[in-house]
């Protein structure tokens, strides 16, 4: 990859559909091909889905919704979007005053009060939300507007470990990382354990494969069976560059991007099909932890550093 551009004063970046969106206070910024620029003086948070992006300039205020046709709708009121989640063609946000979920999408002039609320940790699919609290996981069925299942992981499955952050799903299977490094797969409908795999570490799912980083090794698991399809040691990367995968990783069709925390900011790029190491990108500033600061979109790598500089790289 070669560095294409460095843009200062960028609050946030997001990708949806064919568009890449930059939130910036930089009024000098010129248009880039396939990049939509939203100029604002401040930004609290932005969230994206395949269909749209929502954002707030300040907490508990108006929500803006950017649609695929690049029109922006404004939903006046007092909303919280930290735990907002995509739903159908829009988003479900929290109305702070009524303490209920509200649905917003482009076609609506006002938000639609759904008359229910569930303090969730995440969304599994269009049917379930979940809450992780201590050893307990609670499933909330959106169509029924009620709690449908509660698991106590150690008690119900005879484990000596607690569920930790990073729960995700594929169809009706819920994948739960445990505090001892294991990953368990449970059928949501039958509540039965499908499989359990040891020492998977940090996990991301892509199509029907799970990509894990643990013990300085990158592993590819079959999401259906939990079996390791292949694995590759990252020891060379550790020894040659002192790269330690302390950040998160993101998986795309052709590449896996592994981040390290601290200074300098570093992204190690792996070929997803072969798990071969391809390249190490290094920037002066640190890359904040999380999923929002590195995006691979239309053969461009976007890295937003801690001091709001956006680094854009392009495949040569």
């Amino acid at each position: 990859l070669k560095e294409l551009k460095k843009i200062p004063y960028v609050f946030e970046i997001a990708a949806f559909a064919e568009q890449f969106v930059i939130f910036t206070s930089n009024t000098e910024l010129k248009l880039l091909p396939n990049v939509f620029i939203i100029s604002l003086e401040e930004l609290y948070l932005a969230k994206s889905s395949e269909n749209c992006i929502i954002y707030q300039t300040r907490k508990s205020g108006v929500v803006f919704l950017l649609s695929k046709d690049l029109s922006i709708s404004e939903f006046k009121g007092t909303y919280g979007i930290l735990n907002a989640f995509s739903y159908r063609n829009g988003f479900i946000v929290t109305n702070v005053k009524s303490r209920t979920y509200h649905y917003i999408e482009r076609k609506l002039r006002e938000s639609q009060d759904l008359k229910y609320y569930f303090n969730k940790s995440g969304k599994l699919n269009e049917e379930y939300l979940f809450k992780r609290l201590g050893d307990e996981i609670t499933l909330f069925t959106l169509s029924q507007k009620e709690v449908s299942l509660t698991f106590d992981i150690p008690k119900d499955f005879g484990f000596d470990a607690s569920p930790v952050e990073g729960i995700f799903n594929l169809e009706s299977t819920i994948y739960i990382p445990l505090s001892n490094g294991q990953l368990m797969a449970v059928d949501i409908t039958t509540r039965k354990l499908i499989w359990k795999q040891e020492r998977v570490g940090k996990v991301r799912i892509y199509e029907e494969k799970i990509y894990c980083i643990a013990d300085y090794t990158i592993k590819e698991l079959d999401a259906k069976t939990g079996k390791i399809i292949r694995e590759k040691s990252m020891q060379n990367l550790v020894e040659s560059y002192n790269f330690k995968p302390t950040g998160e990783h993101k998986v795309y069709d052709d590449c896996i991007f592994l981040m390290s925390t601290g200074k300098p900011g570093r992204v190690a790029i792996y070929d997803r099909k072969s798990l071969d190491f391809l390249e190490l990108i290094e920037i002066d500033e640190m890359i904040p932890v999380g999923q929002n600061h590195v995006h691979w979109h239309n053969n461009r790598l976007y890295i937003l550093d801690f001091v709001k500089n956006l680094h854009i790289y392009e495949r040569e």
Partner: protein
Amino acid sequence: MPSASLKAFEDAQKNLSKQRELLDEAAVFIDEALKARLLVKYVDYPNISTWIDETSNNSVLTKLENLDFDKYASNLDEDLLDLDFKSALNEDAELVGEWEILHDAEKPKLRKSLDALEALDRIRKNSKLSDLNITDQMLGAIEGIPNVGYAQILDDLDAAIKALPEGKTVDFYKVVSDGNRGLVNANNVWDRRHSWLTLKKIKENETFLTNADEVRFEVELERINGVNHAVPDIYVTKSDNGIARIIIGEVKAGDNVITSNFNSQCTRYFNEITDIRNLRLFRRDEVTLTKQQVIDAWKNGGLLDNPVVEGLFYKFDNDVVQSGFDPDIDLLEDYLKNNNDWFNTIFETSF
């Protein structure tokens, strides 16, 4: 055994012990030839000459033979007026090496202090020193702080070095000397106190640090876009069930924890960790800090409306407190006021 053979065996044993006695005597025989040569060499230095004349320790003579005459003779002669100092050197000639280090560091009082010399001798025997790039020059340049003298600081440094994981420690020398900063900063007692407190915290967290993948040290302070950004003092990479994590230790050595860069430091660290439990802000025992002071500072700095900070405390509640805190509805300020776990974790506990 026949009596003749027994007699021969006993005679042989006697012979052997006689030979051993002779060898032992030879060992304490002073090298008179060397002594004579040195008396000529140091004829213009009466105290050294007297010492040479009086000593029955060959090591002393060897040290004096190898001493850089032009550089050290005059000051050593002057220091030998101190009889305690002279006696200590006579008992352990190796201390001449430590005296040279403190001499080079231009510390005329300290170089005669037995506590200082012995502490320097102890730490120089620490086999990890060279791996950590800590030089004799750095050790000599270290300065004390109020209530903690040079010798005590060296002992604390020695203990900290022993607590660090071998082959996995990076840039620890910066705590001792990073240019003019660190324990050697003669012009800034706060800087030295900061480094000394770092040593204490290393020792207190020995078990934790021993099992780290890497322990990295930084003391620099930089300005980015006009804002002070501190690099974490102790930056630990540790694998927990296969997952490599960052754990940050920030050392606040001043009289106040809420300093002008407190919020910029916290903001930065909150963007580096994935769990509130991976951050520690250490302070001196006598410095008081209340939960409300931290909340007020964070509120003034806009941290309580920062989605990254809200997300971290939401996760902390899910994992630890389990009170059902919801950042979209509840105010983070209220949550922090109603709970002590986060404060105790960050500000009141070891790693």
